[in-house]
């Protein structure tokens, strides 16, 4: 994992300040979306070897949730944007 993540609010910060949650590639379905959609949302994951978008929380910083795009082979971080700004669609 890269040692720094460029928080859009705080600038480059050590990764130890952040907490990862996981795959940011799927939106929370509508309440009536049906059980398949809900199963997919809660349990299925994009898990690529390569570029991947994830939710990371700047826990020891601005406490914003970010969508971080990084590489699961090289661990390079490509971008970090505020999850609220991107909305869920990333």
């Amino acid at each position, binding site marked *: 994992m890269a040692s720094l993540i460029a928080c859009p609010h705080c600038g480059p910060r050590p990764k130890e300040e952040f907490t990862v949650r996981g795959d940011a590639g799927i939106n929370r379905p509508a*309440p009536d*979306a049906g*059980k398949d959609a809900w199963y997919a949302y809660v349990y299925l994951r994009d898990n690529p070897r390569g570029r991947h978008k994830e939710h990371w929380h700047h826990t020891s910083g601005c406490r914003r949730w970010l969508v971080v795009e990084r590489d699961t082979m090289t661990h390079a971080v490509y971008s970090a944007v505020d999850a609220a700004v991107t909305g869920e669609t990333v």
Partner: protein
Amino acid sequence: MSSFRLSSGGRIDRSKPLDFTFDGKPMQGYAGDTVASALLANGRQLVGRSFKYHRPRGILTAGAAEPNALLTIGEGGRTEPNTRATVAELYQDLIAKSQNRWPSVDFDLGAVNGLLSPFLGAGFYYKTFMWPAAFWEKVYEPIIRKAAGLGRATYEPDPDTYEKCWAHCDLLVIGAGPAGLAAALTAGRAGARVILADEGFEPGGSLISESTSFQDRSATELLAQMVAELESLPNVRLLMRSTVFGWYDGNVFGAVERVQKHVGTVDPHRPMERLWRIAAKQAILASGAEERPMVFGGNDIPGVMMAGAVRSYFHRQAVAPGRQTVVFTNGGSGYQTAADLEARGLDVAAIVDSRADAPTGWAGKARIISGGVVRDASGGKALSSIAISKGGSVETIKADALAMSGGWSPIIHLACHRGARPVWSDAKSAFLAPERQDGLTVAGSAAGVETLAACLADGAEKARQILVDLGFSNAGAAFAPAADKPEHARPLWFVRGSKGKAFVDYQNDVHVRDLVSAVGEGYGHVELAKRYTTNGMATDQGKLSNINAIGILAEARKVSPADVGTTTFRPFYTPLSFGALAGTSRGKHFQPVRKSPLHDWARKNGAVFVETGLWYRSSWFPKSGETTWRESVDREVLNVRKNAGICDVSTLGKIEIFGKDAAEFLNRVYCNAFLKLPVGKARYGLMLREDGMIYDDGTTSRLSENHFFMTTTTAYAAGVMNHLEFCAQALWPDLDVQFASSTDQWAQIAVAGPKSRAILQKIVDEDISDAAFPFLGAREVSLFGGRLAGRLFRISFSGELAYELAVPAGYGEAVADAIMEAGAEHGICPYGVEALGVMRIEKGHVTHSEINGTVIPSDLGFAKMVSTTKPDFIGKAMLSREGMTDRDRLSLVGVKPLDPATTFKTGSHILVEGATPSLENDQGYVSSSCYSPTIGSTVGLALVKRGPERHGEHVTVWNDLKGEYTKAVLCSPVFFDPENGKLHG
């Protein structure tokens, strides 16, 4: 006694003699000695025994790659096994002991293994020791374990301290040899922030271990000039005795600095070692090259040394390897050694050069045997003679030292820590790392450069290019370009026809035949060969052995070394201590401590504390005369139920929630309704995970229209906060809601019991009568006649009339004192989390003992709390799955022993009375239990299949671990005041 100290020369300080012992025998060396050089100076060459065959072993190298000379250094809690004598600096009164021998290194009974060696070939243990089956653990394995291993670690705690730090730089230079120094100088002059790290105690690399010169200057003059200039530059930090052990993502390098490993008297105010994490914009790896051993019979006999190591000891510590040296080489290194020895008048019996066309031009005295090989060395514990084979004839000559060189392998370990694979170079007969990777450039002999001038130029030029890329556009190389003069190395992977064992991996006793037979048995892949023969798995991680092994595998498989490839280089470059990695996080300081604002209040009231996560919470408050914790807890419970008690609940998570959509937000994160919670009211809330399981519970109060105050459990305070922020920011960013954690801002005090209202009314200014402040009331209150503002909640965990009062943290102790004083006439007592737990079990309240991540609301009797009218809340969708509605789900029930004199424990399982104990018959388990002084027996909460339908059923509470089988009855989980009369009192 063949190696010896020369009467003059070297970089040792002869005015500073140092006494030390080896295996109890007193010896003397000088400042500037390593333990290895001092042993050699004392004529001690046999210093250890090998791993498997217990062969006598001497000092082979003069550096980090040493596989043989591993000693136990130090005593007591400072005992360090497996210390490489070749890098350990000598200090006054150092105590060194040899390892893996019994009774002594000179006479080791384990050497009998050598006689059995035909039966102990590669992988022999996979093929035998299987019969009878029970004998492995009982007989064979204990013998193997005892025989294996190297040094013995101490069980005593380490008396020393350690620390960690971060450093940032533009350029990290790893290795202070010629290339590294040139790179650092180039960068330092350009004004870049430079860290130059070297594992040794003296910079210079080959400049101090070789007799070379540069232009008109001797190597040592050049070194002195460079070091003086580097030391004068404020932007350059020279880190000696600092091994860079790993290259990590983000261009972070781990390094360990041995701050006090070289001192006889440890300064307690300084760390023993310091861990550096160096975040470097760019790094230059100038780690040099490792000389390869020649693989021939008896190449492990004490007296056989690397040719470069002979020169290093000769020039640095003025130690000669013997009186009569033979050189075995396939390149210039051997000749250099011979020349250096002859220059001081030492006798070199022969230079055996495996190349038939050995270059002419040798001007020394020694005879050259070109196209010859050393077939075997003999002598047992000390080298005595050498059999040289050339063109079918064998010549034996006497020698007490043999200097060997099989060519050079660039040290590319660190450059391959992040996935890069080494590439075979036919020209260099070596594996090279990619010269430039993102963040790391290899320079000097680590990049295959050979001459001093070329290494200086390479380091300088590569640094210059990096600096320009970093924006130091004026950077100029500290040394002018110089053409390299490469030798055309022709590797000799092993000598054919050796009679004795020809070792490839010295420490693990892997010899040529092991590797060849591994190929024959199907383990020819370099990784399989490593794992099958253990080649390269010793403490030196194959620094000397891997390339030779690859060459031998290549020949056995009839392919090129490029096709064999290397095993994976992984951290650490050299072994590093747990101590350095742990730093200050040890003992009581393993984790930080959180203390409640009422901690001191609890302590002065006699609390016994218990670790709860990072917190210390008060468990109970023993009174004099009470001899068991149960006595104290029973008294506290009965007193609360009869009079009143005060308990510190400050560790609960507390979150302030603001915003015009705060109510809507809470309505979505709780499974029960919150939209219409009135101002001034608290409500118990159940928060689910998206998978429908209960995540946490707590009360949330509406303090004003757009201001809520949430409490969480102690353990989940941080998790709930993160969860709320995720929901607000990532799921519903359109909602206007904000959070602030106020856990540490409030001291929160529970006051419970029938007298609690009367007590609190003495300090609360507002009317808190039942009419004015009914159950679940929540409001800001004025205290002590307006001198302090706080928040009062009428909530109860104990089932008693009870309140929780929150006051600013700094006032907590004073307010608690005031409550104690106000309650004195009412018989108030402090109570701890044990009594709190007893009362909540009596009342059937759940905690994380029940909310264990696998329960849904209906499991705990909360089915009615789950809103059926809300369109959405976290967890709603998943609750309708088949497995969530199974009537056999474990559900909350009470359990109590049929005979009140009997008891049971939490974690016991529930069986139908008389049923055979089996998983199929498992009905559930006791999730919480305690002795209830109110009821007069043990009571428990249990999660049982169809629990609520089974009240009255007789069961066995089964605790086979303790042989405790208690007849019991399932019942309502509410053991106390089921009508809630006291709660509403």
